């Protein structure tokens, strides 16, 4: 089932979607729910799209079973996607003439319940009935979610909605238990906590603000330093100061803020200060489309900052990945004393999904500790020339040794040098970390036929939609497979070369305009894709988009849902 709820900003779409998701979760379903917001607080057009099933759902699709339209604009924008046998749920006042309409006097019922603002809950009541869910589940969720003083009117509203319609659907009885409902931002935040986060600084910026909100809300509970910085430059430099002083530190931002952090990224590189930088991508350049999604900061993340130093770029694929990769990123940053860039995007950050409870222990153990190599010298040398390239890091104040850090090129002691020899040794020392790091890389996940004729390559948050498209095509006999990169730089190349050798054609699937993954692969492996499926209108590639894209290349053709 795929439900879309649309209205203006300020209509409470977000709240209603949240309650509905929770009700579906408690009713035992798998849920995947995405958001599409405008960059305004009132008016315009926002929508949430909630897909649920008794089988796992991990991506969004286009075709709708139910459309809930608060206003005519919602109807106009989405009715094409509503299936012929779909259900349009709206107030008769809208005056829509569509045979799929199930009119409910939403406004009247809401007012009768005590406030026009309970419209959403009236809808939920109606949906509960229509879908054959238990009204008590919805009531429990309302009780947990709403403030005391609003509860009564909303309980009335949900009942009125429930009573206003007849049950229409009998769904497969679901039985999903003990799973969590998490947004991408929540999964990432929790992963950071599992990874040992102690310090978070940020300047508000959509769509990364949910991370700041999360950490700020729980700073006391978890004893974290969480600081809203005066700008992004302050945020990254604070994180580096905290990291130097011994706290695992992370910053979160979106592209524009990341641009301002680039000098700090270089400081992390030369001073070998562990830090995780989260870039929750949105369409650029500059302000771009502030509340939409894109994967267009990939090459920027790989080459940001003057000069050269080892870094790692990880793209987050889905909710579990957001948890595990964030925990891993913090640990890798610490182990190799490097900056780790974590690329997410608006789509994932704001989407909610039902996932198995993440395993904290597993997250913590995902990175093996490094056998510390203190270098040859007796005195403490912060930047000792070690074989691994990783020098002994100590916490200032926790040792009698003095700890020095420097943004200039420096000696093993950490003091400025202009020596040509030391410069070369230091660059080489830092670069040596890449050798160990290579063994740490996670190969891309593969989905599909064993020896695929067609290979798709993608990264980050398009992963599950690509996989679903592949599975569907496999079912229709198409020999296709997909590699989904999480770690992208350094680029793991084993599986890539393996499958590339088998495939007759390779396509990259990317949420950007210039096929950046394709470029990166070419740069790193000398392999070049046949073509690419690209989307850059700020709306995430759906399973359908991928199927259509492939069809345009003559692959698969018309594939029924």
């Amino acid at each position, binding site marked *: 089932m795929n439900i879309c709820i649309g209205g203006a900003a300020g209509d409470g779409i977000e709240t209603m979607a949240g309650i509905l998701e929770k009700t579906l979760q408690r009713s035992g379903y798998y849920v995947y729910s995405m958001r599409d917001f405008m960059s305004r607080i009132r008016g315009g057009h926002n929508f949430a799209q909630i897909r649920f099933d008794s089988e796992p759902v991990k991506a969004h699709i286009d075709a709708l079973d139910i459309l809930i339209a608060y206003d005519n604009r919602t109807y106009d924008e989405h009715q094409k996607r509503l299936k012929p046998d779909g259900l349009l749920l709206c107030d008769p006042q809208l005056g829509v003439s569509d045979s799929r309409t199930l009119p409910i006097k939403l406004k009247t019922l809401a007012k009768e319940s005590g406030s026009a603002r309970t419209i959403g809950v009236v809808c939920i009541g109606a949906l509960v009935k229509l879908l054959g869910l238990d009204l008590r589940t919805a009531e429990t969720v309302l009780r947990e979610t709403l403030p005391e003083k609003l509860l009564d009117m909303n309980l009335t509203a949900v009942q009125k909605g429930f009573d206003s319609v007849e049950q229409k659907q009998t769904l497969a009885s679901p039985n999903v238990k003990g799973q969590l409902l998490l947004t991408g931002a929540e999964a990432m935040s929790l992963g950071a906590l599992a990874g040992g986060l*102690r310090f978070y600084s940020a300047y508000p910026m959509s769509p990364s603000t949910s991370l700041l909100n999360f950490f700020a809300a729980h700073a006391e509970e978890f004893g974290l330093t969480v600081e809203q910085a005066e700008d992004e430059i302050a945020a990254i430099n604070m994180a580096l100061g905290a990291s130097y002083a011994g706290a695992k530190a992370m910053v979160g931002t979106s592209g524009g803020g990341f641009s301002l952090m680039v000098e700090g990224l270089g400081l992390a590189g030369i001073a070998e200060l562990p830090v995780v930088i989260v870039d929750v991508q949105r369409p650029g350049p500059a302000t771009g489309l502030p509340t939409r999604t894109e994967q267009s900061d990939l090459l920027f993340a790989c080459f940001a900052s003057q000069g050269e130093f080892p870094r790692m770029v990880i793209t987050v694929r889905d909710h579990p990945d957001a948890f595990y990769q964030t925990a891993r990123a913090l640990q890798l940053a610490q182990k190799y004393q490097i900056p780790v860039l974590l690329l997410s995007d608006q789509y994932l950050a704001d989407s909610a999904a039902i996932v198995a409870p993440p395993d*904290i222990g597993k997250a913590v153990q995902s990175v093996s500790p490094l056998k510390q190599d203190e270098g040859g010298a007796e005195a403490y040398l912060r930047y000792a020339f070690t074989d691994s390239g990783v020098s002994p890091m100590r916490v*200032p104040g926790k040792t009698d040794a003095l700890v020095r850090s420097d943004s200039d090129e420096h000696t093993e002691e950490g003091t400025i040098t202009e020596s040509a020899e030391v410069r070369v040794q230091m660059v080489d020392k830092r670069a040596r970390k890449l050798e160990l790091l290579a063994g740490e890389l996670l190969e891309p996940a593969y989905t599909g036929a064993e020896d695929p004729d067609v290979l798709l390559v993608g990264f980050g948050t398009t992963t599950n939609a690509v996989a679903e498209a592949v599975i569907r095509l496999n079912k229709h006999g198409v020999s296709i497979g997909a590699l989904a990169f999480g770690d992208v730089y350094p680029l793991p190349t084993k599986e890539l070369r393996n499958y590339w050798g088998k495939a007759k054609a390779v396509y990259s699937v990317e949420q950007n305009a210039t096929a950046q993954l394709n470029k990166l692969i070419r740069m790193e492996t000398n392999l070049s894709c046949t073509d690419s499926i690209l989307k850059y209108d700020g709306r995430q590639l759906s399973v359908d988009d991928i199927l259509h894209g492939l069809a345009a290349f003559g692959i698969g053709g018309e594939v029924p849902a």
Partner: protein
Amino acid sequence: MTNKTFHTTETAWCPGCGNYDIVNTLAGVLDDMRFKPSELLLVGGIGQAAKLNQYVNANGFSGLHGRALPAAVAAKMVNESLTVIVNTGDGDSYGEGGNHFLHNIRRNVDITHFAHDNQIYGLTKGQTSPTSDSCSVDRTGACNLSKPFQPLLIALAAGATFAARTFSGNREHMAKVMKAAIRHKGYALVDILQPCVSFNKVNTFGYYKEHTYELEGDYDATDLETALLRSMEYGPKIPIGIFYQVEKPTYHQQRPAIYDGTPMIDKQLSQDTLQTFLNKFA
């Protein structure tokens, strides 16, 4: 060097540079105050002044030009047992770093900020800094067609709880002010007039010596109005001393639920707590 614990090393400064007096006085002060090198963190940005931490026997962090303050306050946030002192230039503090200056004063983290104010960009060879004298004063070399930046006045306007000025050539005065600043609970700014012998041919040792005078013995450093007005006195006569000092809750004190005296780096979130929290999403 008279001092053993915080002995300084060979520097890359010009002979005669005011920074020598500053580093030597600071080393003496740290010694007098009986700090251990390992409990001290000296932070700098980039510039001549910012190199100071390289020459003192203590923990040292040389960050980016203009970005000393954010790094310094964050180190203090996560480890309140460190004594954190920033030494950096006027260009670094008030030019490139102006926004951090404004907003870190507002945070009132318990750190000390010694701005070596030579009224010039030294390391980049003599450009106008925010504090360079006004061009209306007849002079050659770098000067400000813009209104010169008034560090103390701005600091007070931003809500500083400690604001002082001293002169590197008056070592006794400087030592006294440095001690008070380090002891102050909260952010403490000391603008240190510092001759740059290579590029600032106007605001020389002799110039400062002639123009500076100490605030009166009965000066009331707890009165903001007075402080504002006196901090604007910068011309033929330049007062030095502590212009303003009051106790206000520090960053840490304002967040007792988070900062309970145990440095944050010594605390960990237990896996159990996190597990319990996770269950809320069921």
